[in-house]
């Protein structure tokens, strides 16, 4: 997920009044130069353009080309058109994995964003030194590499080394097996929530900073309670930041990979096709079927695109209605 997302609500776009005239004349001058020297403009864009072509367009094109042929171990490689895609969308392993990440997302995303929003609203309302420290601490898990985080939680979940598994035995219960098939998704969800709540909290908090304080004053004068201000004024004001955070989280969830890949070292219940991305990885790097793996990746990318777009569409419709 990209770190450089716009983190201010549109309401915040109103800059404090600055001398507008010189500013505008400067920009006019710039635009005149661009039309006069198209080569210079192209040169400025070129480095970025080259990087995008070399590391995005070309690999994507190559992967797509790969996905159009099939390789069978015994018969070799042949062009097969959309066969790989037909196979992907009827592959029970992929469909099971998809269903799993969708269920996972339906539970985990609302919980994580709910906590993040609550945290952001609290931070916004409380202005002490404690709040600053809390902000840093909440953000910290995001700074821990995902692989390290997953390994660390692997130990925390362990029955030998972790503090949690044996808790029920204090009251006479059975120890918890965090890697059992019934708890595995919860265990993974906990890691993801741990890693990303603080990050989303900071995004929402930053958006809250951009909301004009006058709105709160007006609400207070109208007799709103702090809770009403939070829910009726602040949340609607940062709606766009919330939906942006949600969209990136949905995309990330569809691409669920690192945590299950690491946890598979402890948990036999994580199968080869536990998540769609893990399945694509195994097809390429365990079964040497780079062609089918490329098709799986594109199919997944397509689904992510559809889901993300549907999300934006629904959000806009709702936004337009209200």
């Amino acid at each position: 997920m990209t770190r450089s997302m716009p983190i201010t609500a549109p309401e915040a776009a109103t800059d404090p009044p600055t001398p507008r005239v010189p500013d505008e004349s400067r920009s006019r001058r710039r635009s005149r130069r661009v039309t006069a020297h198209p080569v210079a403009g192209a040169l400025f864009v070129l480095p970025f353009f080259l990087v995008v072509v070399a590391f995005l367009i070309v690999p994507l094109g190559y992967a797509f080309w790969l996905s159009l042929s099939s390789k069978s171990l015994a018969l070799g490689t042949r062009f097969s058109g959309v066969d790989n895609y037909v196979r992907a969308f009827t592959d029970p392993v992929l469909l099971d994995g998809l269903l799993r990440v969708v269920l996972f997302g339906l539970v985990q995303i609302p919980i994580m964003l709910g906590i993040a929003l609550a945290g952001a609203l609290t931070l916004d309302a409380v202005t002490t030194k404690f709040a600053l420290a809390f902000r840093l601490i909440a953000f910290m898990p995001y700074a821990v590499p995902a692989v390290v985080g997953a390994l660390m939680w692997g130990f925390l979940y362990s029955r030998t080394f972790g503090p949690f598994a044996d808790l029920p035995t204090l009251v006479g219960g059975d120890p918890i097996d965090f890697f059992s098939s019934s708890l595995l998704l919860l265990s993974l969800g906990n890691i993801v929530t741990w890693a990303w709540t603080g990050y989303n909290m900071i995004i929402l908090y930053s958006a809250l900073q951009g909301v004009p304080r006058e709105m709160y004053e007006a609400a207070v004068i109208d007799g709103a309670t702090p809770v009403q201000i939070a829910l009726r004024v602040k949340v609607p004001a940062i709606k766009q930041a919330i939906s942006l955070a949600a969209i990136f989280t949905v995309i990330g969830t569809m691409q669920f990979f690192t945590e299950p890949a690491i946890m598979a070292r402890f948990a036999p219940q994580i199968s080869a096709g536990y998540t769609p991305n893990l399945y694509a990885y195994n097809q390429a790097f365990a079964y040497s079927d780079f062609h089918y793996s490329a098709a799986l990746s594109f199919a997944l990318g397509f689904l992510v695109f559809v889901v993300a777009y549907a999300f934006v569409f629904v959000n806009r419709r709702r936004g337009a209605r209200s």
Partner: protein
Amino acid sequence: MLGTNWLAKVRMAKLGRALAVCGLLAVAACGGAAGEDDGPVRVSVWAWYPEFKGVVEAFNASHTDIQVDWTNVGTGPDQYAKLKTAFTAGKGAPDVAMVEFQQIPTFVILDALVDMGEHGANEDKDIYAEWAWSQATDGEKVYAIPVDGGPMALMYRKDLFDQHGIPVPTTWAEYADAAAKIKAVDPAAYIASFGSDGGWLNGLMWQAGCRPYGYSQAKAKDEVKINLTAPECEKVVDLYGDMVDKGLMAQDKFFTADATAALDSGKYWTWAAAGWTPGYVAGSLKNTAGKWAVAPMPQWTAGADEQGDWGGSTFTVTKQAKNPKAATTVARELFGRSKAAWDIGLNKAFLYPLVKDVAADPAFTGKAYEFFNGQKVNEIFVPVSEKLGEFQYTPFQDFVFKDLNDRTAEAMSGGREWSTVLEETQKNVVAYAEKQGFKVSR
């Protein structure tokens, strides 16, 4: 999850570094190729043996015409993933790569390995244990040079068995009895763990007389035999499944911190392990060192002498080798009969040697191990290796082991009857093989 972009960045960074390193290597290699008359041939090797640095140094010290550049790019699956990528890309593979026995047909069908028979490797046939040589070769074609093996035997806690008067099992029926007795004397203990390890389960099935796979590229590239539902195979899963269901077997995956701690705390009393296992775990089992002993594997029929193997590895020469002849020499002589190499291999890395002379050497068979309270455990492992017969693998063994692990995981969580595990794996593997263009027979 959301960290995929972050991961991608790290991968790019690694790639960048790898490219830089490759560039340097390429320059070095170019130098070697251009000035073949004045300098030694440089051969790149990927391997993850412990203590391998000394072996490489010994080779380089004893050869003037060939020098080895060694890289450890990761253990097992990590290295294979890199190899498979390099073979698909057409470049980037080393000249010589360490490959485990069960992976040889997989790399053969990817057309990744040089037939070292063309460079005289058939001369080595009689040096190595027969079973190992037959797995490394296909008729006259020599795809791999054996290094170490994993003849299986039963590691057990002698002190605990003695203390509670439980006889050490000699048959699998006695093993199941012992499992129940252990649970009775210590409810927190288990006879062992069902470790969710394809190679381990495969070794147990091998010992039971199960020969589920057959493949020979020399005979027919597109014909493969899959027969996982033979009674010899089913009885292994039945026995272990029954012990798991009764709560007599733990379920920790092997080589995790949990499993190692359980071995060292008295939670597990036995481990049906391989010749290399003691060396692998001895360093981590500080509390219980000296309390373990090795017994021959329990038998399916009382008095029989059936044996199995878990793991073991070889050196292969890749099709991308710039000088296949020099690379073959490296594969044959890095260990081979090199005394210096085996000194390190036996005493520091604890490999089980597949070179018959080395395995038969009294220095090896007569070696007393402190970890086993002075027991000369190789007196047990060596006859096992000598007894091992032919066993073949499929050219898609990763898929077979992964599917088998996924199905046993379902059975462990109660989502599947143990009796259907092999049936389902058979079905999935046959479907996969047919999709890959193979004609499948039983």
